[in-house]
């Protein structure tokens, strides 16, 4: 889990870009950080595995920059770009489900990794909720890809989110219960995922061991 650059899954990028990122991780002030943030966002939107990892890279760069010159240019550029993507999320979703799922994964990942004063960034709380709410709408529950993304995010950051804003989590779970219970066209896989996340939250963001057995026993073999 250490910060070796290879750990960051940047091998899929071309050599120049890899170099740029590696430099940014070590000596952020020597590179164009706006370009770096753009690369990270672009790659995250293309590659779902990357979007799950990008938060760590961003975290490291933010730390390095703060240490180096007390700067926050990278974070500002990253958030600005992210905000643009967030604003056009409906179009993105209409254009490519995959990209949309990557976007949600990425925003949630950033929310998870970048903290201010050891607290989640307040500015991201509502946007993250907005994304998750969108994933909980009936039309999105029809796509396993989106349901999958939704429950994954809730597993990772659900507890933190609820702490900063409980009422919205309630709201979100109304939707999920309704979807689970009332929506007839759901696949059994989607239902399973929803049921699991309902149990997960009900158990205080932990799955009891019996529940765990129920949901994961088949996967083990």
């Amino acid at each position, binding site marked *: 889990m250490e910060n070796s650059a290879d750990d960051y899954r940047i091998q899929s990028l071309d050599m120049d870009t890899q170099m740029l990122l590696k430099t940014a991780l070590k000596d952020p*002030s020597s590179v*164009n950080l*706006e370009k770096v943030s753009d690369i990270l966002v672009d790659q995250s939107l293309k590659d779902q595995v990357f979007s799950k990892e990008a938060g760590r890279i961003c975290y490291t760069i933010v730390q390095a920059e*703060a240490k*180096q*010159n*007390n*700067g*926050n*240019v990278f*974070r*500002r*550029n990253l*958030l*600005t770009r*992210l*905000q*643009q993507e967030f*604003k056009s999320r409906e179009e993105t979703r209409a254009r490519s489900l995959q990209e949309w799922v990557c976007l949600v994964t990425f925003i949630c990942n950033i929310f998870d990794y970048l903290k*201010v*004063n*050891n607290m989640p*960034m*307040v*500015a*991201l*709380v*509502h*946007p993250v909720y907005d994304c998750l709410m969108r994933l909980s709408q009936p039309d999105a529950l029809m796509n396993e890809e989106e349901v999958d993304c939704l429950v994954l995010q809730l597993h990772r950051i659900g507890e933190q989110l609820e702490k900063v804003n409980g009422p919205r989590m309630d709201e979100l779970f109304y939707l999920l219960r309704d979807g689970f219970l009332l929506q007839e066209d759901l696949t059994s896989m989607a239902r399973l995922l929803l049921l699991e996340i309902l149990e997960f939250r009900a158990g205080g963001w932990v799955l009891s061991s019996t529940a765990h057995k129920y949901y994961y026993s088949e996967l083990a073999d």
Partner: protein
Amino acid sequence: MSNWTRGRRREARDNEHDNGSSGPSRWSHCRKRGVDGSLRANREGDAGPEKGGESDSRKASFTTPESTGPVSRCGRKADWGSQVENDEMRRDVHRDMQRYRRRILGAEVPQRERKISSGSSESCDSREGENIETDEAVLLRRQKQINYGKNTLAYDRYIKEIPKHLRQPGVHPKTPNKFRKYSRRSWDQQIKLWKVKLHAWDPPTEEGQDKVLDDIEELGIDDVMDIELDFPNLTDFQNAPASLATHSRSLEGDDDCSGTPVKIQKTEITEEPDLA
């Protein structure tokens, strides 16, 4: 929802002020960073983010008389980067205030402080304590004004050329103490005079701009914290915890009650060698 709204209200107030007291054009020519925080070298790319994207629904639902003024800066505050920076600044101001309180209370009334220190932080008020400005909105507004002043090439040059121990009251610019109770008018005047004085260190007009970019990294750590106290023997205490964010948790931890004078004095003693 309420978080957003509260945040924006504060921003609107701040903006109204910054725009009023000093026209951007007058001071901005020697800024090392733009409003968006990027170094000026990146300026060209900057025109982009200006985007009319601020037309998001929240803006329409929230209007104050002030924000109808010079718009561009207000509009930008809606962006996530600024919001996060504001949160951060709030954190810093709180941390500074705890430090300031401990310092002046520790310096002026050690006995009283010791008696009281087991109580809540509220009870820390003493003679001096009553003079402390605690209104967060006021402190943030002041901090922002100070930041604007410090975000100048002149300021960089000043702190480089005149080390702290050589600065003389009345001769050299001295950052106004944001924790003291002052009327709005008095504070604004202090800021104004401070900025005017700082202009003496403006870079020579032709070549100054790029050269100084290299100098930025040389900022001393004691410049991170910006209050300069009236107690010269204590100023060096600033060096101690200025080691930034990472410590904030533990610092806040003992702020509540256990910030006893004994502790503070100890810290000072260990810091003493730095005076040399």
